């Protein structure tokens, strides 16, 4: 059994392909995220506003695709992204708070 994680492909208002992730990402399900990212190539908007937990296993997946990702997320994940250094490699956007889904 793995932790609940949903992945919904879509398109960002600016036309870029987008993957919307919700739930918690840890070593039990980081593989599914990696699989979904490997499915495409080229720029991708990763909407993580509904992600409540992200650990180093998930970060490793994101690092592997750093050069093509744009992250949309909430302040909840900010410390992890900053500490790991990922925020230095990719663009991170924080939308208005009312879009954020709280725990």
């Amino acid at each position, binding site marked *: 059994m*793995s932790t609940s994680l949903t992945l919904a492909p879509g398109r960002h208002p600016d036309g870029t392909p987008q993957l919307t992730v919700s739930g918690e990402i*840890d*070593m*039990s399900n980081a593989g599914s995220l990696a699989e979904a990212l490997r499915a495409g190539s080229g720029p991708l908007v990763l909407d993580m506003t509904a992600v409540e937990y992200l650990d*180093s*296993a998930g970060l*490793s997946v994101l690092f592997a695709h750093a050069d093509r990702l744009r992250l949309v997320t909430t302040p909840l994940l900010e*410390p992890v992204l900053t*500490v790991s250094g990922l925020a230095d490699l990719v663009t991170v956007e924080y939308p208005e708070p009312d879009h954020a889904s709280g725990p």
Partner: protein
Amino acid sequence: MSCANEAGRGAPSASPGGLFTGDPEVGADLLAVDWPATPLGPPEGWPQSLHTAVSILLSSRFPMWMAWGEELTFFCNAAYRRDTLGRKYPWALGRPAREVWSEIWDDIGPRIRTVLSTGRATWDEGLLLFLERSGYTEETYHTFSYSPLRDDAGDIVGMLCVVSEETERVIGERRMATLRDLGSDPSVIRTEQEVLAFADRQLDRNRKDLPFTLTYLFDGRTARLTGATGIEPGHRAAPAVLSADDPGALWPAAVPAGGEAVVVPLDGADFAGLPCGDWSEPPVRALVVPLLQQGSVPYGFLVAALNRYRLLDDGYRGFVELTAGHIASGIGSARSYEAQQRRAEELAELDRAKTAFFSNISHEFRTPLTLITGPLEELRNRFADPDDEVRQQLDVIHRNGLRLGKLVNTLLDFSRIEAGRMQARYEPVDLAAVTAELASVFRSAVEKAGLVFDVDCPPLAEPVYIDRGMWEKSVLNLLSNALKFTFDGSIRVSVGAADGHAVVCVADTGTGVPEAEVPRLFERFHRIENARSRSNEGSGIGLALVQELVGLHGGSITAESSEGVGTAFTIRLPFGSAHLPAESVVTEAGSTAASVTADPYVVEAMRWLPGDGGPGDAVVRAETEVTARGASDARARVLVADDNADMREYLTRILAGAGYEVTAVTDGAEALRAVRREAPDLVVSDVMMPRLNGLELVSRLRGDRRTASVPVLLLSARAGQEASIEGLEAGADDYLVKPFAAAEFLARVRANVELARLRTHHARWRSALIDSLQEAFFVCDESGAVVEINTAFADILGYGPEGLPYRPTHPWWPDAATDLEAHRQVSDAFTGFLGSAHGSYTVPVTHRDGHRVWITATFNKARDPDTGREVTVGTFRDVTAEHYAIQRESALAALSTSLSRATSLPEALSGALGRLKGLWRARSVVAAVFGRGEVPAVTATEADLRWEELPAERRETLAALRHKVPLTPVAHRSGAGVLLEHPEGPLALWIDLGENRPFTSEDQLLLSLLAGHLAQGLVRAHQIDQQRETAIALQRAILGPDRLPEGFAVRYEPATPPLEVGGDWYDTVALPDGRIGIVVGDCVGRGLEAASVMGQLRSACRALLLQEPGPAQTLMALDRFAAGVPGALCTTVFCAVLDPGTGRLTYASAGHPPGIVAQSDGTTRLLDQGRSLPLAVRPGRQRPEGRCTLPPRSTLLLYSDGLVERRRRPLTAGIDQAAEALQEGRGVPLDNLATQVMARLAPPEGYDDDVALLLYRHPAPLEVAFPAESSQLAPVRKALRDWLGQCALPPDALQNVLVAVGEACANAIEHGHRHAQGELVRLRAEALVDDLRLTVADSGRWKPPQPEPGAHRGRGVALMTALMEHVTINPGPGGTTVHMQMRIA
């Protein structure tokens, strides 16, 4: 609360019916029951009410069973199965209750019927039930309540029973009561019989655990019955005598004799008809335990018949052994006390008898002896013809008088030596010449005996210092001894030098003594039996005296002897005088003292020789005439003073020839000294002499009232009237001018002597009377100067008549510099002495040789009839022995008081050392116990002294003491030591006097007594220590829950002293809905009654909390219960129910002090709502309830009033102090905080009431254990997220903790997976007031933190470190532990 189970086990699949899911195990067994065969039918058809009842039952952790339907079909839960049902599980499930509990149906059936018919619940407290659950009939106690169960229609169709098993508590209390009673009176020492009778009375009160007992004591290998309970004397199973060597003995005495315990089955004819104790059936087994004795064979053994309804488990065995231990220590105590008492009495008696004997004998023998020998001399002169029959008989009396006198003098010498009053005068002599001269005295006797007398005394190179009198006695004794035992061969006397010593040897070829007797030769009053000798007479005291006398000279004497060959005595004396007391050494040889000593020895020896009917006095006298001493027949003594030796000899010769006893001196000064020592009948003095001439001598004699009446005849070469007038004016009685005719001289002498005799007749009687007084006598003039004394005075103080007058300050006054107190006592007494007409004082004085003497003096003022001046006449006696006896008594009393006040072994010892130090005004007292450790344990009057810090010399002294006989003091120059028994090993004790102070035999006796007393007291203190430990252990066993929920810490402290169980308690109860009931209560009073009330209330409160909806209702129900329990009135209780998830607390207080909450922001809150009266004061009255929510990271303190209540201080002050302590420790881990609060609030002398304390910190720490699988991460995260929510963390902090812990868990899973599959990972999270502590532990080994850059594991560690404030990763052989810490702002 623990989440470990839920998280660890994983959710089991639900049962098909879903009905029995509350407990997987019991549920499975219920599922297996053939329900259609029961009146209830298949579970699918059960009513909803039964479903509900079963699920409540199964989900509860509290033991419960229920019965439902017409046959009362039985259900129970896992807790009930574990505690009560035992082997009947699972057979009992689904059966009729009547069948399940058939053995107790008579007890419980009526109760169940009452519940079913009335709908009212029942309540039973500590009911005794005999259960068959463990394969035997077992004595058990249960507290339980039956309440009705209703079906969907509301009709009563069954009952629910909530049970609390109290077997352990009830039996524990019962055993503790017996042990406490046994130890209830440790301070009173009893005889062995009393100890045993007392023990029997206590054992007899517990016939449940001890249906009957027998106490046997060993007498060698025989055991005698000395006590019994529960069994008639004369019963076949209680034989009066057993042998440990008899294999067929009824009780196997040989086993306990070897120190082992044994179980004896009670079957067979001898054990028929055994008494049953409190039960209806006789016991089937007995435990025989030894009554152990430290370091020796057991005193005896205890036969304890065993309760057949209980297993002989560790607790039961321990109880019987503790019981035996109590009896054994009682016996040990009584025996050692008796032995000690006997020894002390013997010692004191011996000492008294000895002192009395030696002091009495002197006066009692001497006075009559003097009155025999004096008249005898006169008679012998009257019958001068040696052939006269009367004369011969007189000679017999004379010789025996001499012998008796010699014996008395010898005894007196001993008495003086023992009392330290032997006055020696060591002068340098030519030892060879002196010894040869003494030997020559014996020559005729030896030769007459037909022996060769070989005297080999070449001169020595240097002089030897001896006291002539003592030396004469020594040599004469040895010679006399040699002659007595030698029949053939020779006696040899030799003098030589070796190793810096003069060596004098007296050897004979006599009978000798057996080798075994040689060491005893010098023993006092020891006579060699069956030895062939010339005489059977003898006291066996001569050689002992020789040894003492030689010892006084700093020398030694040894003996070699072989039977039939002979004996040789060798005396070694050091040269020089350094080894002798300086004040007794004179550098010049004194005037040759008259040797009166030899006479008795030789006279006695001559009598042993055969073939001599009339011993020739003439011969003897000729031999003994070693100085200018005439025939001793003359009554009058004349002192001749002349500086011309020829003249001196001439005068001596003619006077001696006329029968006078003559002493000759060389000048006036010596004459004066001689007269003062002993006044002669007449002084004949030359006028012209050096130093002091005759005229001056006369005036000095006349000027002193003691010598004023001594007649003086002056001789002068100066002729002429004026010279004569000058002499007579000076006070001379007569005057003779040289040359003079011998006849005229003798006529003048005779006339003067007779005149003086008439004149002094009265005075002589007076002084004879005074000298015969046993008490010291003295006369003082107006200034306080002592002008006249008697012999006893000189004996007691060492100051003789030669030093008169003694002017104040008298020389015997204690030295003000070294003993101011004693000096002041004497000085005060002296002032009183001068100022009063009469009086009496007891004062310390100092003997001439320095030792302390206590005297009681009585005096009266009188008028001297001659001079008309006022004088003071007094007497005193030596009360030293009495003084020390009183001192001993008070020292013993003081030590006893100190020991009886001590509440522990170390306190007893250090208190006693302090007493000893004070008693001897010692510099320090140190005790070393040579126990099991390598280094002896040291206690000293200086605090914290350790063995290593002692001087090496002191360590050696103490170690050497170990090998001495216990209770026998050893005295050195600077102190004294003694060995005694300490419960942990031999104890060597040393008293450091710090200076050269005599440690007298009185002191040694006292030390011996005190040491015995101390050993006794230490054993007693040790027993108290043991009892204290037992009491606490037992109290803790009956108090409080077995397992505390997470987040709680508790303490219980009994009151000190007297250490007693009390009525305070704390309790936590896990309620079925996950909440926790919390109780702290305080029953009135202390002791066993209070403890028993406490036990009942505690059980009742537990059960009620499970039944009632809240604390107020619980307390109201408890009110009703308490009203029926004697002693429960006014118990105070704080009862609360906590929801550990939310921190919500509802509480009610029955007169109990308020709970205290220390909040994380530093404020304090009192739980002072919900207050009402103590228990049972107004049963039925509504009780209010208080509510509060414990904020995150706050700490709750509940306590009994012993913690805060102090005399003369308002309770609120104590509560404030407790709140302060709690607040200060709000950041300390909980268990440490409990210790800290107890210590902070403890009064200096310890709690005087018992204290129960309970702490809870919200939220309770989180503990999760989960398998090392990645699927576990999400549920663990959820549990942690919930818990962190309770801690009220800011959201971002919460996320940081989640990630950091998540990384640590992920690492643990990876490595756990790799190294040891299936191992658990453990997470613990604890919130302190301002920080979080998190621990993740696994059983694997981690990689180094940064193995390959970019790999996500290394990133994980980096994340942890970045997100938390403090991270440590400890890899160990058993796994890796990560500690993380984060401050909460």
